[in-house]
């Protein structure tokens, strides 16, 4: 696999290994006539990747051939064009297209429904007040003082209702959920029924009979607005207040590296709980780094490849049969897998030794590189000095703004930073542009070298990185219980995205029975513990 490394335009990892193996690769290809032609062709040309690697070619060329983890970061590509995409990317793109179109339709539909309902609700009281004047103005009693007072009340209550609805409902949607939001649907149905029933009553008892008592009509309109305010109160309680008090403790585990967090949630439906978990995911979980999992995957592959089971005495000719791959009866497969497990248990496996020494070596390497990096950055920061106000006026020639200052000191620390990022397998999360931007930002805000380095020494939460490094955009909720049903103790659901999934388990916070005990402050009394000895 090492010698057949190929380079594509789309893989981030290959940038570095390009340089170090350029010469070696050419010679190897000459000695391997049987390697596939198209691939060997491509391996000689140098493609420019669209996303810039950590450094330009100049620094890479200066590197030693012995680079530490070149084996893990070379990639093979399946396509044959210059800008080839991997299979995963294609799947991702098509999914994005489909789902964005579907979601938009639904969002516009609900938006129009909401607007219609809102207009209906606001115009109804006004209609109740205005229609008698339009339809039977002569018969109508004139509006006395009390009646005009009610006009003011209607106006202000409508204003308050408008502000309240704006505060509660006019927010850009945070997410698109798979099923309809049950409480909102119930509330809109309730409001609709309510308004329709008021209209029915108005139509039958007032419009048809052409009632002259205008004050009664105004009071009717006021009662409508009051009831609408009460429905809004119900909406606040159902939508906002009910889930504030924590009832459940959910444990969220990422399936690839086992990172685990615990959150407290109130009484929510499964889909809203999933939404809350995902919002916390972006803020709390460190960014998903698939490069860190390659070591365990290679170990697993070695385990599998270690044993082969052959069926020597049986109906079938001796053919390598590995578990479910063959067409033997289920019992035969069972016995074969059991034989494999027994053989694996008996075999003296020394892979744990390798792991131990590898880990120790890696730890040492990381610490060494970190030390070099810290020293290089501190030294780089001493090369620039901030100009004070007075000095700025009588400025000497070479005054720079933060971006230029960052560009000036960046090359002295670039190599150490690049080596460190490669050792900790983070080099694909940071591009050169982003590092220089961060450096300019730190210089502008008077941050120390240590503050500049913190974001590279520890992997931060997913939100801190740019969107294309998230590896987590499209989520699928997998749940046995219906997603609009409420969370219960012991409910488990999965949030899948392309590369990994989040497993969420729920436990309810127990009912606490507390009793009281009264202690009188005067009851705190003490005696000395004596043991005297008297000589007689």
């Amino acid at each position, binding site marked *: 696999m090492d010698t057949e490394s190929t380079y594509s335009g789309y893989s981030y990892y290959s940038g570095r290994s390009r340089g170090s193996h350029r010469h070696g690769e050419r010679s190897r290809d000459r000695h391997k006539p049987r390697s596939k032609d198209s691939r060997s062709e491509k391996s000689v040309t140098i493609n420019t990747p669209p996303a810039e690697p950590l450094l330009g070619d100049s620094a890479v060329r200066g590197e030693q051939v012995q680079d530490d983890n070149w084996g893990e970061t070379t990639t093979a590509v399946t396509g044959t064009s210059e800008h080839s995409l991997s299979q995963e990317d294609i799947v991702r793109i098509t999914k994005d297209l489909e789902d964005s179109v579907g979601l938009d339709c639904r969002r516009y539909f609900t938006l129009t429904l909401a607007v219609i309902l809102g207009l209906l609700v606001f115009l109804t009281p006004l209609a109740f007040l205005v229609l008698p004047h339009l339809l039977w103005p002569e018969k109508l009693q004139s509006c006395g003082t009390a009646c005009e007072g009610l006009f003011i009340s209607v106006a202000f209550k409508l204003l308050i209702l408008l502000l309240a609805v704006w505060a509660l409902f006019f927010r850009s949607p945070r997410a698109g959920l798979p099923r309809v939001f049950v409480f909102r649907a119930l509330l809109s149905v309730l409001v609709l029924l309510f308004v329709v029933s008021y209209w029915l009553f108005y139509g039958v008892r007032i419009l048809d009979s052409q009632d002259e008592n205008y004050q009664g009509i105004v009071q009717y309109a006021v009662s409508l607005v009051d009831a609408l305010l009460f429905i809004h109160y119900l909406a606040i309680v159902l939508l906002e207040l009910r889930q504030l008090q924590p009832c459940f403790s959910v444990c969220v585990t990422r399936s690839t590296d086992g990172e685990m967090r615990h959150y407290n949630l109130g009484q929510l439906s499964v889909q809203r709980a999933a939404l809350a978990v995902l919002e916390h995911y972006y803020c709390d979980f460190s960014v998903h780094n698939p490069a860190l999992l390659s070591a365990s995957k290679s170990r697993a592959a070695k385990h599998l490849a270690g044993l082969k089971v052959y069926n020597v005495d049986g109906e079938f000719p001796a053919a390598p049969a590995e578990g479910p791959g063959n067409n033997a009866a289920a019992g035969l497969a069972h016995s074969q897998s059991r034989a494999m497990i027994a053989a694996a248990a008996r075999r003296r496996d020394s892979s744990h030794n390798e792991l131990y020494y590898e880990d120790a070596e890696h730890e040492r390497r990381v610490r060494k590189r970190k030390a070099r990096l810290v020293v290089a950055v501190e030294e780089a920061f001493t090369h620039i000095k901030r100009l004070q106000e007075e000095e700025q006026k009588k400025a000497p020639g070479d005054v720079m703004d933060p971006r230029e200052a960052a560009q000036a000191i960046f090359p002295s620390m670039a190599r150490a930073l690049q080596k460190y990022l490669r050792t900790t397998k983070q080099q694909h999360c940071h591009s050169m542009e982003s590092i220089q931007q961060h450096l300019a930002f730190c210089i502008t805000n008077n941050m120390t070298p240590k503050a500049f380095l913190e974001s590279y020494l520890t992997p931060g939460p997913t939100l801190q990185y740019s969107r294309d490094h998230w590896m987590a955009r499209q989520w699928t909720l997998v749940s046995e219980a219906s997603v609009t049903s409420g969370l219960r103790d012991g409910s488990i659901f999965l949030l899948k995205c392309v590369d990994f999934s989040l497993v969420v388990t729920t436990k309810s916070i127990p009912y606490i029975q507390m009793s009281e005990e009264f202690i009188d402050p005067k009851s705190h009394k003490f005696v000395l*513990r*004596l*043991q*005297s*000895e*008297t*000589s*007689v």
Partner: protein
Amino acid sequence: MSNLYGDAMSYVPGQPIAAVVERVQIHKLQERNNLILGFSIGGGIDQDPGQNPFSENKSDKGIYVTRISPGGPADKAGLMMGDKIMQVNGYDMTMVTHDQARKKLTKKNEAVVRLLVTRKSLEEAVKQSMGVAPNCNTATRHY
């Protein structure tokens, strides 16, 4: 001389105590203008019984002999460290305060104090001698 009263030296509050006691007679010694007996006592119902190193039952609030000055009158009379004083000149010492015990022992007008003390080794000695007693002839012969 030993008086035989009963068996174990256990202490149950409210119940009469049965114990094997030894009668010790101490003649007070005149030292400057004090009459001293030559030992120290500890314990009492107003003291903390848990800190008594000599008692078997740590809730026993009796008076114990904590120190014997070597060569003093108590030492010559055969009093031993760790003895529990049950009576002094007929006054009971099992339910007294520390100060009351001191006063009973240091009365200026008495030259002699007769103590009844008990210790663990007394019980065992009595048990052994009870085992020999029914067969008198053999006991005398063993002398």
